[in-house]
């Protein structure tokens, strides 16, 4: 029994790393722009397709494709921010919500048009590779994904702490007006923040691809997890999202084993409601 629990924790943590990366993108965008990106899951889906096709057509390894995907998604994010998000920043919530919803709808169904509803997966030489640690099994692609996710998150946190642009982003998340007065180029910083958020989700898609199928509605499955992580992590705390992501991974492992893998979303939602009732500011949120 002890081994099983340890195994579940390991599996959960490894998965949780990807969830954290995915959710940090969402947290970043919400923290800075105060807009929830309802199309977040669809960006994940696009990244997964891109990884799939890069592998399928050019034999590019998913982890190598990160080198392409991260900059492409960063640019893609900046473009979307400029064209669609920016004009809405002072609009009522209804407009903001339905613009990103509409965007998600377009992406999802374009994928359906282009790729049909088929499930697609990639098969790499290491797909089924496992490390054995005594009784415990560590799946190699999961381990790699975890390491990459954590490395990217740490790099992002360092970037926000050390660089001028990073500090500008944090300042903007704290106080819009004061940041403007301090000479921060607000519009540029918004674009960069959105770009980073999308780059995060892009990276998450690429490292998820060796582990999971891609299909047009795959995003709505994962975005639900990201939403719960963001709320658990306290809306605008990146560190909170990291911890919450890992936690959700572990919880998913346990609920999958002890309840049913089909009901994991139900478990999330019940948690979600409980957080709302007892800790409306999340586990790591400031009041």
């Amino acid at each position, binding site marked *: 029994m002890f081994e099983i629990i340890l195994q579940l924790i390991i599996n959960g943590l490894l998965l949780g790393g990807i969830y954290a990366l995915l959710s940090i993108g969402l947290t970043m965008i919400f923290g800075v722009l105060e807009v929830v990106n309802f199309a977040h899951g669809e960006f994940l889906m696009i990244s997964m397709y891109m990884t799939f096709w890069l592998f399928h057509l050019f034999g590019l390894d998913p982890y190598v494709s990160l080198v392409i995907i991260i900059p492409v998604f960063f640019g893609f994010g900046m473009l979307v921010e400029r064209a669609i998000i920016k004009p809405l920043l002072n609009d009522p919530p209804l407009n903001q*919500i339905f613009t990103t919803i509409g965007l998600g709808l377009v992406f999802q169904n374009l994928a359906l048009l282009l790729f049909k509803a088929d499930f697609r997966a990639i098969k790499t030489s290491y797909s089924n590779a496992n490390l054995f640690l005594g009784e415990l099994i560590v799946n190699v692609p999961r381990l790699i994904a975890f390491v990459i996710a954590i490395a990217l998150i740490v790099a992002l946190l360092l970037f926000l702490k050390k660089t001028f642009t990073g500090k500008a982003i944090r300042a903007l998340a704290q106080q819009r007006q004061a940041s403007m007065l301090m000479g921060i180029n607000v519009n540029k910083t918004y674009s960069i923040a959105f770009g980073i958020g999308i780059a995060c989700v892009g990276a998450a898609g690429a490292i998820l691809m060796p582990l999971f199928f891609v299909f047009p509605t795959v995003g709505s499955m994962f975005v639900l997890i990201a939403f719960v992580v963001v709320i658990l992590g306290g809306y605008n705390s990146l560190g909170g999202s990291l911890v919450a992501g890992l936690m959700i991974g572990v919880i998913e492992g346990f609920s999958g084993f002890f309840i049913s893998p089909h009901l994991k979303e139900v478990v999330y939602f019940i948690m979600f409601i409980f957080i709302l009732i007892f800790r409306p500011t999340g586990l790591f949120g400031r009041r």
Partner: protein
Amino acid sequence: MTSFLSSIFDFVDQNKRVVTLAALIGILIIPLIPRNSFYQDLIIMIFFWGTLAAAWNLLGGFAGQISLGHAAFFGIGAYTSTILYLNFGLSPWIGMFAGAGVSIVVALIVGLPCFRLTSHFFALATIAFAEVLRLLASFWRDLTNGGVGLLIPHEPGFKNFIFEGKLAYTYIILIMLLAIIFVTYLLKKSRFGYYMVALREDQDAAESLGVNITLYKMITLIISVFFTSIAGTFYAQYYAFIDPDIVFASHLSIQLALLSIIGGVGTIFGPILGACFLTPLDVFLRGWLGGVLSGLNFVVYGLVLIIAVRYFPIGIFGWLKKITGKYIKKPTYALSTAGGGETGPIGERSYRPPDEDTVPLIRVDSIGKRFGGLEAVKDLSFSVYDGEILGLIGPNGAGKTTVFNLISGFIATDTGSIRFDGKDITSLKLPHTFCKEGIGRTFQIVKPFQSMTVLENIMVGVFNRVGDVKEARKEALRIIERIHLSRQVSMEASHLTLANRKRLELGRALATRPKLLLLDEVMAGLNPKETEDIIQVIKSISREGMTILMIEHVMKAVMALSDRITVINNGMKIVEGLPEEVAKDKRVIDAYLGEEYNAELK
């Protein structure tokens, strides 16, 4: 042409009952028109989507609680009545209400915690909720037959809610549609309607005017969910087949919003217009393009949604209103005097400084409030007596606004007690109960209900004491004259100048008929002329015996208006006394007024 149109609109205006009756008869004839089942089906779908969109619009459009999970209630309605019918032979007519009952119970359980969320996260929670129900319906095979779905056998009969042909269905769904329109109409015309829009525009302001926002959100949710759920039963009976992916589809929830937005969100007829426009388009896209390119219809929807909210937020209804607006006479309100007048009793105030025996209207007794490491208010005591104007001054960050938030219920006190009008109100939880007790307040950063007119803004305040709309309008007009906003009576609050917003803020608080009026910097940012005008308004209010506690930085106003002044610094009271005493006090000058004011005195 113009005069012809005008005369038509005049005719409509003067014969509302006749026109409504004619329109109703016209609508009831519509189902009889189509000759083949394709058009019958189209009409049913228009009514069906119209009903659902109108139900969504009540909550999302009027009350501003944007749900993306209405499919949950649609699905509960469909599944409840179908399961009861198939397993127990219960007539869907009864099952329909059973389903609505289940939906409402679920909505209340989930809604109560979710209503605490800001709009983005509320929308997000509702998406998650509907998704979870879809999964549960797929998983719970014993009850729902899982992903295979449930088939209702074709056994026509009234009791079974199954009919030969489509005419009966057309009338059933038409009745549902008319019912939701009628309910929306009734709500919109009443105090409830004003409250829904107010809480959409600004929840804090609505609370401060005595609106129990949670209660009103809940009632709106119940009505919205009821109609969504019975439409679910209708769907199950009409198509005789349901499965989790159909009735709990997230697309369904989005579609309801889309119809409302295209038609005109937050209007009575918007959702129906949206359904009239988009349903045929949908049939066309599905039938013609969807067959070849599945998914294209949703691509079009997504694009329409993005473009509509950006470039066409008023919707079809708003656009129709705009082009017909020229021909419709706007209501005019009789104003007594051109310049707005002093309606208060003439004469001087009879204010006498309180002595030891006088019982204060409000007694604040050593209250304290801590925010993390910052002690914003420390052991603060003061009283305000009947008919008095007490000025509360202090440097920036002294804790003045926190004091206001504490005595108007927006923040709970950590220590101490507040006695108001012979009653301990320390433990009251919500701001609206403070308003009901008789404490009216303004906000330093004004919070007008942007999309409402000046008149409507004031009416929301009046509704605190007056239930009847006509009476409330009359009283609101009187208040508008007093605050010198008569010329802006029909102007949307978003178009007002700062000075007028401050006036509006004052008038709205006054409209709740408070015993104690809290004014938070109503003169900040105004020019000398505007300041003088507000001083006169406050004087006239005071002459009628209103007790006022005001925070103010404009020293001229504080000196001119206050009977006594309390000075606080770092959350503590440092001096209290008559204006001239306070002005001379060394501690005050040091803490707050500074050299500048000294110089001004000389």
